[in-house]
């Protein structure tokens, strides 16, 4: 199949390029990526991107410097939240994925320590935090419903992997299901 004929190419390209994660909730795009992964991977590689299929079966593009402000915001948001879960819940991953968290209950602006870190990435008031949650939703890491309840989605595993690999790089939680070490 010619690359131009790949199903949902335009939507997939647009979404992935925006930094969005495509999960099995994006039925058609996910199926197209699953069925034609190698072709998509080659196409994106030619465009300077690295398409990755995470072991938990979602897709994302890697590109751009990690030091970009948005990445700093995402990282600060997640590491604070994981730290909060570890201190207040019996588990981290189970709590993260099995519970819903009211937006006003987020711990990021509730302690001096967390506030200081968040202010370094330009999140100082509730409105900033709400905006950041909106950005995370756009990227596919979580979704928030009308009652302002946050549910974390599988792409959040990428931040869990980062923590795991920092402490134990020897058993790196390689995200890649279809390994591409080129």
């Amino acid at each position, binding site marked *: 199949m010619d690359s131009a004929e790949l199903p949902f190419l335009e939507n997939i390209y647009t979404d*992935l*390029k*925006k*930094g969005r994660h495509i999960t099995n909730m994006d039925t058609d795009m996910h199926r197209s990526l699953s069925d034609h992964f190698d072709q998509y991977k080659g196409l994106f590689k030619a465009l300077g*991107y*690295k398409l990755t299929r995470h072991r938990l079966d979602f897709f*994302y*593009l*890697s*590109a*751009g*410097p*990690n*030091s*970009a402000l*948005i*990445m*700093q915001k*995402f*990282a*600060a948001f*997640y*590491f*604070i939240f*994981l*730290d909060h*879960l*570890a*201190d*207040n*819940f*019996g*588990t*981290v*991953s*189970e709590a993260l994925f099995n519970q819903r968290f009211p937006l006003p209950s987020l711990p990021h602006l509730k302690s001096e*320590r967390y506030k*200081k*870190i968040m202010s*370094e*990435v330009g999140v100082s008031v509730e409105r900033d935090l*709400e*905006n*950041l949650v*909106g*950005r995370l939703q*756009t*990227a596919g890491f979580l979704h928030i419903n009308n009652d302002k309840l946050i549910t974390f989605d599988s792409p959040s595993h*990428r931040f*869990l992997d*980062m*923590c*795991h*690999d*920092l*402490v*134990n790089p020897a058993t790196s939680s390689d995200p890649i299901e279809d390994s591409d070490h080129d």
Partner: protein
Amino acid sequence: MKFTARQAVNYFHKHFSVYDALYGLNIPVDEEEFLALVHKHAPSNDPSTYQSILSKSIDFGILEALENAAVKTYELSEAVSALIEHFGQSQSQVTSELIAGYLQQLGRYVERLEATLRQDDDESAILSIRSIDRVLDRIRNDSRNSCRAVLLEAVNIKSSLESTSLRERYTLVNHLWDNHVAPLQEVIDINAAIDSTLGNLSLVLDRLDRHFRHVSAVHTRVVVSQSKLRRMREQTFNVYREAKTSLEPLYKKVQRDGLIAVGAARYLSMFENRAIADVLEEMPDGFLSHSRNEGLFEDFDAEAFTYELIDYRPDVELVLSPPGENSFSASLSLQDVLGAVFEQSSVDDLAKFVEQHFDDSDSRHFFDALCTLAGSGSYNLVLSDEPIEFNFHGEKWRGHSVSLTPQRNKTDG
């Protein structure tokens, strides 16, 4: 000497600390060593009583003398050893240090067995085999106890999920795994050092059986010992499997969650001590795709930024040219710039070229020329690997230099 069971038990109780210490040594001791143990664990103002403790212990059958050894030595009788071992089980757990100790003991006994073969000494062989049997029994019992400890702890941990924090559980489960499960693995691991010792032991026992084939007492002990060896390995394997099955899911889960918690805390600590951008820059690959050529209104930052721009008034007047026209100064046209490039054939750095050839050029001449040349299909444009800084008529530019080389037509050969 005639005595009642009560008298023997009372005597055993009175000097238990001495016997327990001897049990802990796990090797026979000579008279001087035994008296030193008594002095240490049951000191008396009258040292002459030490000798009496030795002889009474033998009379009560608590100690046995090893008559055939070159130097007369003493050890606890089998029954007393078993009793102390039985009551000591609850404190005894398999640890790596314990395994190393057993390994050392077995190695020593195997050497002794080889010596008895060389000396054709069947009685010493029997005594050594009995010592070996005790070590094998201890490994088996300790493995079973470790398994019990693991099962009990696993149940405790599972039942207190809500009341213990993740960090506490992480420490508990790691301790349990490292101290009780991992050492059992050493016992059954065919690649571990203990396997080679047990293999040697089995071989020496076979040789012993062949060498003393006419001594039925040796044959009987060898058969018993071989079966103890097999039973120890089988039972240890079973308890290991049981302990591992019970703890492994919890261990894996807590291990991963614990690593995540520790990792998150470590990232936060790094964020507090260094610039966040610097910390993230050290990560190997681009984490996110965040290049974009459009603003999206569901993007809150873009939306907020746009609102801020509503009140923005530029302090210079912008002139928008209709399509097809340009806003070049009358003195310098795009055609002038392009003509100079065509004459030059190839150009190392387009910005520098424009700046040096045309005093009245500005940034728009450079960008329009670049876009026109890039779209012409007549030139190969190559960007420098590293960005450079460049002064363009007083403006400080930073970017990749652009070199131009004419494209060869296919018909050029």
